[in-house]
């Protein structure tokens, strides 16, 4: 093996009076030396002796407390406690000049414990553990030190005492070794204190107190018992000269099983005097927690204790022993290396224990071989408190000649290896991990689904808002340009169909999505149907109905047809207004309620079209202010209902029954009337010309009635029976209402001579006759609406050049005023709270209505 070069730096040389009791202690920048007689304090900073403490008898053991009190055991005397001589001196410049060390005579007053039998002691925190040699007993005593601010105030309280019988070891080698060393060190027990790592009682800084070591909990538990491990008790290990390693858990109360009262028990026997006890990392795992306990005998036997898997037996402590060349004069541990000196050479021993389970048949792992460091005659050493993980190791050593030297050796680079888990733990760990994974997965999947739901909701909400904004912006555009096509539009077509032998009017709404966005799940088409003038027919309930058609998806460019009944036969109250709207329900966003959102929409109800707190409503065809969208529907519906009849003659029985029912069911109706009700609408032909075209052009061979017929055709166009309109020759149409009444619509050409200043004004008069007031009203309304629509769409651009005569206007005004007065008079009883249902009032209102309708104003 390649020899290791290490640099040796010699610091000072002292005379040694007794080579057996040499001790070396490092305390910060100061080195405490026990040269057999006195205690020397050497400053490593200035490289010079700073103080000498003189005792009456030779000092055999030395310790330094955290508060820098020096404890010294003197031969056949006891333990003294003195404060470090440097403390009272202030670092004045004068002190630096002063080259002479302080010589302090330690008086007998500073004796802490007078006991001549003490052979060794250990300072662990605030405890002093002493070993005294009795006649046939080793006595281990525990004392608690309470240090005062000065040395005098320190006092001692005895806590416990344990005894172990001594064995007179008669070993032939002893004498020779002893003689070589020339001292009586053989007789001194070695003490060390082991703390479980991670325990509460272990001091934070162990480097300052030699003889105190950390040990990993598993091995600790194995060696010293569950009880000691649970309470984190420090354990005092005492290596006796007869080779026994005794241990004493400090905190564990006496073991319960009677008979085993003594807490001090024997761990192992090296069968040769113990030279060193310590803990070492000693594993290929690069942890910093010491995982093995090392004991070295003076004759070179090394005991290594590690925790191993016992193959089904749980963990077991493995005791492995091997021998190195002795005698071991002194030793110390740094990381995984043990450095020991055999008076002639300083050697380094790497403790490397395989963590594999030791099967009975398997040969022992080869014992590590020591490497010579080529430094001779070291009799005491200590590791400097350098960082054990990186950098070189530094040892402070005292040679046989009394030379204090610093040995610096290169640290071999450790290959960082992954700490391995023992098999017994692995099973449990795997189970734990799996359980943990299961838990996390469960939580994660729940969270994921929530997130997904939310994303989905947000996406759909976004879509809905897009559609809303599109529609709203389009509405604005549409306000300016009339013929703008809505991106999403709804058209309605009515048709008659026979349901359960009853004719019913069906409305087919076609929702066309020509916008860029698809209408997704959550949207529904809402059709609101309500009669426009239901109040006229007092007997019937004025009921409006709303139909909602939710749909899954409507892609752009697709259409959706829905068909709904508007009413059958007599229950149909015409005309009807149909409002279509798109509704997006916020509830469909998911099961979760979104109170915030509904609040928001509630507060913004003025801008966002909402009806309810939890849905968005987009009107498609709507509003009274803009009748253009709805008008064709109303008109055609009304007219088609009339015009349908000629093509399909009604079932006589049905007609009969219907009429019978109608007679009975309509008490307000003055049953037998000789003359039918009639209403008239006058429109200037000029106005209609744009629609019906030039006379004769649309009519084909219509003859004198050309204009009238084409006007009638126009009125009836777009309804169910419009395909038969071509056959229409006379300007009169008779239809059968669903209620059973017939109605007749006649268009005449009239010439009004008094209306215009320019002379005669040609006009068209549409007369509606029927025995049913409701039918008359409905048809009249339909015609008016149709013309209104025509007016609004055509007024722009062309201005009426017709100059009206003032007189006729005034006349019309007067007539209107009288009618208005009459109406108000008729309404007085109603205003006074009298039932408006009285027949008198009805008659009066009816007559007013008739007057109104019979002398209509000319629509220009």
């Amino acid at each position, binding site marked *: 093996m390649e020899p290791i070069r290490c640099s040796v730096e010699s610091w000072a040389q002292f005379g040694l009076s007794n080579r057996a009791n040499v001790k070396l202690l490092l305390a910060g920048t100061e080195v405490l030396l026990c040269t057999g007689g006195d205690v020397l304090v050497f400053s490593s900073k200035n490289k010079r002796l700073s103080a000498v403490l003189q005792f009456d008898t030779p000092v055999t053991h030395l310790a330094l407390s955290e508060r820098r009190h020096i404890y010294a055991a003197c031969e056949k005397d006891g333990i003294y406690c003195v404060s470090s001589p440097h403390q009272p001196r202030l670092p004045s410049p004068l002190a630096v000049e002063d080259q002479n060390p302080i010589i302090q005579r330690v008086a007998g007053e500073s004796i802490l414990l007078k006991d001549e039998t003490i052979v060794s002691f250990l300072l662990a925190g605030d405890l002093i553990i002493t070993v005294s040699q009795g006649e046939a007993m080793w006595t281990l005593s525990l004392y608690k030190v309470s240090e005062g601010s000065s040395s005098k105030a320190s006092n001692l*309280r005895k806590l416990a005492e344990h005894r172990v019988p001594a064995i007179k070891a008669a070993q032939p080698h002893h004498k020779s070794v002893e003689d070589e060393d020339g001292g009586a060190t053989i007789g001194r027990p070695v003490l060390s204190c082991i703390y479980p790592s991670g325990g509460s009682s272990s001091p934070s800084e162990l480097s300052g107190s030699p003889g105190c070591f950390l040990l990993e909990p598993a091995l600790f*538990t194995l060696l010293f018992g*569950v009880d000691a491990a649970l309470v984190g008790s420090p354990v005092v290990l005492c290596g006796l000269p007869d080779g026994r390693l005794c241990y004493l858990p400090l*905190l*564990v*109360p006496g073991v319960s099983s009677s008979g085993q*009262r003594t807490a001090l028990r024997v761990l192992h026997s090296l069968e040769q005097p113990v030279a060193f006890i310590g803990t070492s990392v000693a594993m290929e795992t690069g942890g910093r927690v010491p995982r093995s306990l090392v004991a070295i005998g003076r004759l070179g036997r090394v005991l290594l204790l590690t925790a191993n898997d016992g193959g089904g037996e*749980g963990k077991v402590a493995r005791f492995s022993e091997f021998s190195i060349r002795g005698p071991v004069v002194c030793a110390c541990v740094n990381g995984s290396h043990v450095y020991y000196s055999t008076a002639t050479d300083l050697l380094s021993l790497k403790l490397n224990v395989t963590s594999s389970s030791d099967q009975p048949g398997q040969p022992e792992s080869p014992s590590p071989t020591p490497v010579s460091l080529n430094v001779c005659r070291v009799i005491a050493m200590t590791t400097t408190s350098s960082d054990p993980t990186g950098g070189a190791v530094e040892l402070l050593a005292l040679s046989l000649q009394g030379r204090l030297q610093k040995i610096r050796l290169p640290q071999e680079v450790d290959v960082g290896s992954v700490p391995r888990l023992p098999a*017994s733990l692995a099973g449990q760990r795997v*189970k734990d991990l799996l359980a943990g994974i299961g838990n996390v997965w469960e939580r994660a999947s729940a969270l994921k689904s929530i997130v997904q739901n939310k994303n989905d909701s947000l996406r759909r909400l976004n879509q809905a808002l897009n559609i809303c904004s599109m529609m709203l912006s389009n509405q604005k555009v549409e306000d300016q340009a009339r013929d703008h096509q809505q991106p999403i539009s709804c058209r309605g077509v009515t048709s008659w169909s026979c349901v359960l032998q009853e004719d019913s009017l069906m409305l087919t709404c076609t929702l066309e999505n020509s916008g860029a966005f698809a209408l997704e799940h959550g949207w529904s088409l809402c059709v609101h149907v309500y009669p426009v003038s239901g109040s006229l027919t007092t007997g019937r309930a004025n009921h409006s109905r709303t139909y909602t058609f939710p749909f899954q998806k409507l892609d752009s460019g697709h259409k959706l047809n829905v068909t709904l009944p508007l009413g059958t036969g007599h229950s149909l109250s015409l005309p009807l207004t149909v409002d279509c709207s798109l509704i997006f329900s916020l509830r469909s966003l998911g099961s979760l309620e979104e109170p915030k959102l509904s609040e928001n929409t509630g507060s913004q109800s003025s801008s966002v079209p909402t009806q309810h707190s939890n849905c968005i409503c987009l009107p498609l065809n709507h509003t009274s202010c803009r009748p253009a969208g709805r008008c064709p529907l109303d008109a055609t519906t009304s007219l088609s209902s009339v015009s349908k009849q000629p093509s399909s003659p009604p079932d006589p029985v049905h007609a009969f029954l219907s009429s019978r029912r109608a007679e009975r069911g309509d008490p307000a109706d003055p049953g037998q009337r000789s003359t039918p009700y009639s209403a008239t609408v006058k429109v200037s032909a000029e106005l209609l010309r744009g629609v019906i075209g030039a006379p004769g052009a649309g009519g084909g061979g219509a003859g004198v009635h050309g204009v009238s017929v084409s006007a009638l055709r126009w009125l009836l166009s777009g309804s169910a029976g419009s395909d038969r309109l071509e056959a229409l020759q006379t300007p009169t149409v008779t239809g059968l209402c669903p209620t059973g009444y017939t109605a007749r619509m006649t268009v005449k050409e009239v010439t009004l001579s008094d209306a215009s200043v320019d002379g005669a004004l040609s006009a068209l008069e549409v007369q509606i006759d029927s025995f049913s007031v409701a039918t008359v009203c409905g048809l009249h309304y339909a015609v008016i609406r149709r013309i209104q629509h025509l007016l609004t769409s055509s007024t722009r651009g062309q201005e009426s050049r017709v100059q009206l005569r003032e007189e006729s206007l005034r006349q019309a005004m007067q007539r209107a005023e009288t009618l208005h007065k009459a109406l108000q008079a008729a309404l007085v009883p109603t205003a006074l709270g009298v039932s408006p249902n009285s027949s008198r009032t009805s008659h009066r209102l009816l007559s007013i209505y008739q007057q109104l309708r019979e002398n209509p104003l000319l629509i220009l």
Partner: protein
Amino acid sequence: MDAYLLEKWTQANNSFVKEWKVTDGRIGGNHGVKEKCHKGTLKLLQKIQGVPAVIELIQLELAVAYNTLVFSLNLSSLSDVQQSLTYTLLRALEAVDCQTSSMDPIVLWCVTLKSFSNTSHLSCLHSLLCVQWALWLASCQMQSIRHLLRDVTQEEVTASSQDLRTVIQKLSLSEKENSNLLVAVTAREFKDLLPICTILLEGLENITQENYSAALVAFLQAASLPAPRTLLAQVHTLTGFAFAKLDQPQSALQSYRKAMEVDFGCHSALYQSALVYRQLKNTQAEIEALRLLHSALVQHTEEQTVNTRVMIISPDVLLSSKCKDSIMAVPSPQLILHSLACTCVLEDRILEAVELYLDLMSSLQSDITQPVCTEADVSLPRVPVVYLEAAFTLLRAKRMWDVITVCEEVITKTMNLIPERLVLDLSEEHLLFSMEGPSKSLKHERLEYVLWAAAAHYLQGLAYCKMKDTKESVANFTRSLNWLAKVSIKSTGTLVGDQGDCEVVKTLQRLRGLALAGRGVSFMERGQLKEALRDLKLSLQSITELQMIKFGLVEVYRRLGRQEEAIVCWRESQSSSEAVSSGNLPLYLQTFPEVSLCFDINYLKKAMEDTFQRRGVFT
């Protein structure tokens, strides 16, 4: 020459005695100084005995011998005392030219006392006689004392009565003092102490023979004699003990009270009265007594070093009876804390118990204690057991996370040590448990590891169950069962399981049942009713007498909609009264209603009553 020597030796003797007394008076009396004095006087005695015995020197020699022997007694080195004493007597006889062939101390004393009967040296001899008495007292040779004292009183052998006390009453020893010669302790002090100690020892012997009434008479007489405070307190305590043994607890309590009135430091009286209160089932008083004792002990250890004024001849040296030690012994503060805590748990004083357990645990982690020798049956349980008991108490106090933490500690420490498989052969075990030594302890210890780890998981499971974390609780109960499954019990069948060795097996069995029941209930809460039913049924096989499990079963049946079975089971649970046989079980495996189950029993009761009512209407 003689006069000079006499003077010199007298001075030397006096100086040693002075030094001794100074040291003794000082706090914490220095052992080394005393040793020095002892050695000094011993050397002096050897010097004196180096010259031929003459009557002029005999007084000095006797005094020095007396001092030496007193020092020896004080330093508890009794080995050479008898020899030295005999030699001194022989020297004395030599001085008066009296020969005797016998070396028997009693004969020797008889001769010596006769020879010196009318001399002025009799008082010195009487002092020595006290040493002899004390020596025999310390080594419990009552018969020798009787003979000796009879010789002193010079009664006829015919009148020899067995009653030592009457002899002592008649005893008169001369008490002349020589002011020139200092003695370590005056003969009078010595003589005051000896009779009472003798009577006490007699009483103690009676106690070891379980003759309590005789012991009581002796103690009562001892109490009437003058004695130092501590000794008197001990006498009262012993009286109380005898009363207690004679089943007179109230009288015993009176005696203990007297003992404490005499010397409040007499902790054993307090402890013994606590024991009496426990016997009387006066828990309140017991707890109070134990609390007082604990605080007194804690204070005592702090003050111990401050005032220890020991007598030169302490009664403790003279009364080295094991029996007395065991009566006067007071358990360690930790043990008292534990017994207090246990009492509180069993008395449902949970909050108090929690505090006590926490105190105990912190004390275990920080206080270094000298093991105190007490009776074998009162000792602190193993640390893991204390932890588990603490966890159990915390569970009852509903501090669930604390329970989990404490149990985790136990688990991490024991887990590594459990083997994959532990075969327990009961027939073999029978031998094992009767055996002492390491072979027994390893297997037993491993069995305990299993028990502790499983119990810790069980308690964790309960804690999680209480917190409604049924997933964790199921996991923990399962772990507990897994640990238990590692122990396989091999029973040969021939074994009669009435011995204590089966107790471990019973405990494991019960733990298994409890863990199964816990898991069953957890499964039920999770809605896994099939598993719940299986576990509860298995649990019922392990523990037959526990009502809680049956309630659980009823609830599962109810949830499964199996009304008929629920009713049958309910009736069963109502008819069988709960047998409280959990006496020998560890505290942490006891069942309390609030610990065992998670669902509401009252609700179940109501539901079942409703069911019955409905049935009543229908049938």
